[in-house]
């Protein structure tokens, strides 16, 4: 378990409605700092400058999907160590298992419950080495 509490979250998601809900949930209930990224193509730059504790990735996005972005991150030393949580409506259990095997910290399936989301993320955070 990391020594410091989970605070800075970067969320890459193309749906602005969901962005709004996640921001409200994490900021107001979870008391965290949230950086939202709408375009996955610029995500790596945003992540590098924001320096989050944890990155949340949507699965289905125009331009580049979550898993592709995740693999890209893995190749870049400055972001490769960041824990990544997938949040998705589509993935099958097998897809999720595959992502975990690739090094994803966890998966949260849509629909998630904004009331529970901060706790879910903290639970994943707590299990990290």
């Amino acid at each position, binding site marked *: 378990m990391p020594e410091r509490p989970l605070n800075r979250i970067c969320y890459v998601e193309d749906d602005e409605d969901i962005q709004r809900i996640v921001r409200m949930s994490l900021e107001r209930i979870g008391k965290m700092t949230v950086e939202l990224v709408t375009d996955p193509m610029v995500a790596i730059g945003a992540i590098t400058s924001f320096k989050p504790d944890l990155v949340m990735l949507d699965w289905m996005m125009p331009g580049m999907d979550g898993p592709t972005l995740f693999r890209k991150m893995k190749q870049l030393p400055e972001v490769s160590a960041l824990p990544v949580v997938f949040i998705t409506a589509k993935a099958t259990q*097998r897809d999720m298992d595959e992502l975990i095997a690739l090094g994803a910290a966890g998966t949260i399936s849509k*629909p998630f419950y904004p009331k529970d989301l901060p706790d879910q993320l903290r639970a994943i955070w707590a299990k990290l080495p």
Partner: protein
Amino acid sequence: MNTLANGIESAEPGAAAAITADIRDRADPALVRADRVEQLYSQLPLGMAATIVIGVIAAMELHEGRLLELVLFWGGLLAVVVVLHALLYLGYRNDSQRHENTGQWLRWLGIGAFAAGATWGFAAAVFFPSHADERQVFLAFLLAGVISGGIPMYAASWPVFAAYAAAIALPFTYVLATFGNRLFAEIALLIPLFYGVSVAIAFRLNGVFLSGYRLRHAYQRQLVELQEARRQIEASGRKLALFAERAPIAVLELDADGVVQDVNQAAELLFGYAADELIGHSVKRLVQPKHHGDFERDWASLMTTRAPLAGVKVRNPRRDGINVVCEWSVTPLVNAEGRMLSVIAQGRDITAQLEAERMKKEFTSTLSHELRTPLTSIIGSLQLINAGVLGEIPKDVTELTEVAERNGQRLLDLINDILDIEKIESGKLKLMPEVIRVDELVREAILLNKGFGDRFKVRYQARGELLTREVTADRKRLLQVMTNLLSNAAKFSPEGEVVEISTEEVPQGLRVGVHDRGPGIPEGFRARIFGRFSQADSTTSRQKGGTGLGLAICKRLVEMMHGHIGFQDRDGGGTTFWFELPRHA
């Protein structure tokens, strides 16, 4: 081919007796008898002619002595016998039912033969003692002649001959024995011997005739059967050819080297080749060149095992280069001697089916994503409002947002349940079994559903000590079953009640029971409670929520985990829903 092989096997030495018995059994006894009677009657004209000739000669010879009146009387008697025989013969010939009335005609013939014999016997009795030596020799010669002439006449029925000959020999023997002459007395002793020998010969001949007739009938029947068999073979051959020719599936006959021997029309249409372009060429023409190596290996293994294959999916290139996916059944035809005759390959074009399956999968996946994403926003927004994230909100507003959140959740449950059912029924749901302690499972389920129970003011509580035994099951799916049963129990329990959860050992394994104090299951609903979209009445879903799929999913999930699910009335009112899972070994 087996029949063929069996036929060959049965023709080994020692089977001759069996064949004889077979021939005997095959011949219809009534037909054989009709043949014998026919044979007897067909001899009659010859017999009558011989009787007239011999009678005239005898009369001329005998009347030279004394007793002219007696000779005339005897001649008249003989004439009457001949006329009666002629009438008998005509009667027989004109009887259209003669082959059915064989017993009657045989009886009349026997009577006729006896009468004829008696007429000759009369001659012996009357004329022998009255004549001198040389005429006695003539008479003895004559009588021996008519007796022996009777053998071929009546060979088809030895009892008829026996009656005929006895009628001649008995009076003659009597005359000889009583003549008072030692030589004649000795001859009288010999006559019964001759008689016996003659009857024995007639008996043997009778047997020969019988087997001859039987053989003829057996042969006839065999011929009829052979013709029928040939007709059937031709018919089934035509049918088979028609099956292959008109079948909507491609049928190819290949030899042991994989060279096409024959194809049907469906194969021509499916692959776009004319029959001539395929016949005589290797079937590899229908295999993608990059897979020729695999094909040769599979073919060699087929030639070794000679075991039929089914459900082999192959991507086959058509003449125009487009690939079709076919499902093949491949059957080597091996004859009784173990020689490979040919290989029959039957292929069904499943390209469209695979495409439909792919589209269905895509549709389900899209449905899942496209419906869940907006619901996430809707339910999420409402939940944030209802959770008080935005501060105090007027009561009548939250009343409505709570209605909206609850119904959004209901819609989501329905989508999830439909997707679950679809996944289970299409066999796509894969379980991930793990070893689970039953008490831990129950506690986790109680914890997970506490919030739901609170909504209905119902408390979940374990009954007594929970078992610490283990089962092998998919944790997530088993929790889904528990959640379904617990939420049903809460929905139907009166406010303030306790829903009890029990664990117990049963012969089939471990049983988990969920006991409620609800109104019980209506009689008319019991049979379809585990069916799809079943709820006791349609108002229930509006009042209590739920999709009507929950128990159907539970049943399928529990059965996939090799368990059973059921329910029973509870003493003191209410219902117990239970499921049983096999104990972890």
